[in-house]
């Protein structure tokens, strides 16, 4: 049972709603990254349900925390989080992937509350470094968060940006890596092994923590405050691809597969019953 009165109870309920919305959105649309959305649904819920200082009525408020979804293919999860936070009506989610909608299959900055369009991997961290550096120059107190995928860490530009942030000690910047161990068409260890990921980020000048990326209390503890005052933070979130739907968990198949028919019904039933 989710205790909806506790803080983590609220964010866990938000995560469940994000998963249900995303299931419907990817099912009716022509494309899916449902496994990648579910591995980071708890992270998105903790960010939008508790950590981020954002104002739905004033999405461009100067003092807002900036969140960059660099793994833009998980955008259905972000759109769902934004709708649940009141950035736009929940009904709009039904237009995802439909003709004439602005809710495209890789995240779009035309959607209220979305900072940046991404979709090509390896872009978000550099831009976020620009946000963080600008905040330092201005003496502004807001924080900058970036959610990366593990496969995205294959991109050289991620490491260019990691060098920059470490060098300039951007302690207002937090990277979260959705380390679900499965990339586009194969497990990370088979494609380009990232291990030891912790050591890589540490050696680039970052303060690194590892958490269970589905444990809301742990996520809150690591994300609510910057971990260091002299360097950027990297939170490696150990996650399960497809988390929340038993037959999707830990499979390469559900990176791209669209949940339809019996699979859709079975997934919905599991999510609705996990209260």
């Amino acid at each position, binding site marked *: 049972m989710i205790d909806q009165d506790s803080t983590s109870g609220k964010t866990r309920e938000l995560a469940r709603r994000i998963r249900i919305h995303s299931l419907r959105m990817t099912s009716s649309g022509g494309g899916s990254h449902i496994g990648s959305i579910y591995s980071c649904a708890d992270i998105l819920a903790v960010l939008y349900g508790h950590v981020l200082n954002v104002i739905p009525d004033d999405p461009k408020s100067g003092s807002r925390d900036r969140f960059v979804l660099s793994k833009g293919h998980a955008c259905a999860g972000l759109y769902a989080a934004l709708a649940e936070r009141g950035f736009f009506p929940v009904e709009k989610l039904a237009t995802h992937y439909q003709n004439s909608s602005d809710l495209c299959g890789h995240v779009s900055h035309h959607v209220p509350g979305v900072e940046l*369009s991404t979709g090509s991997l390896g*872009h978000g961290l*550099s*831009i976020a470094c620009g946000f963080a*550096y600008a*905040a330092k120059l201005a003496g502004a107190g807001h924080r900058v968060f970036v959610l990366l995928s593990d496969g995205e860490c294959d991109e050289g530009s991620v490491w260019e940006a990691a*060098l920059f942030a470490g060098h300039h000690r951007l302690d207002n910047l937090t990277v979260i890596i959705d380390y679900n161990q499965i990339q586009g068409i194969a497990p990370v260890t088979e494609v380009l092994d990232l291990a030891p990921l912790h050591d890589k980020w540490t050696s680039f000048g970052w303060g690194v923590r590892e958490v269970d990326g589905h444990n809301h209390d742990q996520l809150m503890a690591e994300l609510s405050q910057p971990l260091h005052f002299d360097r950027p933070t990297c939170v490696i979130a150990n996650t399960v691809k497809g988390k929340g739907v038993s037959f999707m968990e830990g499979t390469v198949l559900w990176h791209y597969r669209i949940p339809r028919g019996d699979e859709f019904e079975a997934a919905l039933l599991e999510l609705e019953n996990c209260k």
Partner: protein
Amino acid sequence: MRDAFIRTLTEIAAQRPEIMLLTGDLGFGVLNDFKARFPKQFLNMGVAEQNMTGVAAGLALEGHVVFTYSLGNFPTIRCLEQIRNDVCYHEANVKIVNVGGGMAYGAVGASHHATEDLAIMRSLPNMTVVSPGDLWEAAEATRAVIDHPGPAYLRLDKSAAPPSHQSGEEFRLGHARMIRDGNDLTLVATGGILEEAVRAADLLEEHGIFCRVLSVHTVKPLDTETLSAAARETGGLVIIEEHMIDGGLGGAVAENLLELNVHPTFFLRIGLRSGFSSIVGTQQYLRGVYGLDANAIVTAVIAKRSEFSETAKVGTS
């Protein structure tokens, strides 16, 4: 042009604290003064152009006017997707500066020849493409891209045409400048190779051919009005650029005039037709080898005119 750029930028940056200059670890001795005077407005990003461009987009979206500075293809093609997605798509106020347009760094080889940049950059949505022909244009273009909100590409050359501006003349993005007038044809140039166009116009006068010379410092948006007028009033258009023959200024002029139903009596593109340069040489030397210098322009123009007059004779006989 590089010095004209940095002098102008330094002057304006003193008044405009939101201006930032990011370099990809180039500009030794050139950027020192800027860095010393405005340490908060300067970043050496290291040899990391993708990150430089992404960070520039982030800074720009937070209200800065950001210049990225590098050489040849490094600030453009090396990080093209960051320019497309991060800068252009978000309409970020980023100005990309290339201090080695064309074969300015001729002797170092093809890696450093920026000879496809105009074609590539002009195809990007929201991008303004500026390629000054002389030092005055370089300084004025620097001011103009600061005042112009949104992405811009500033292609600076080592070579430059002699000064030709009138006192009080106003530089306007998207408006070509007439360097001299003539009735027989128009030489249309972009970038430092304007100097070859001016020299060719002098030489052609000795053959009794009087050329109009236009400096098209803004390749995008293109001044179709001035170009159309040149076609109507002088007949032939000769497009001169230190760039591959495909897709650059010649391509832009042809596309636009054809669509406007403007048909010059003849149309000649002077550009690189032989692919990558495999030989060593200064910019001047390579222009000679590849048919871009004043003498080559004269020869090509005379041949084209005689071809046209032969055709005309056949047509009337």
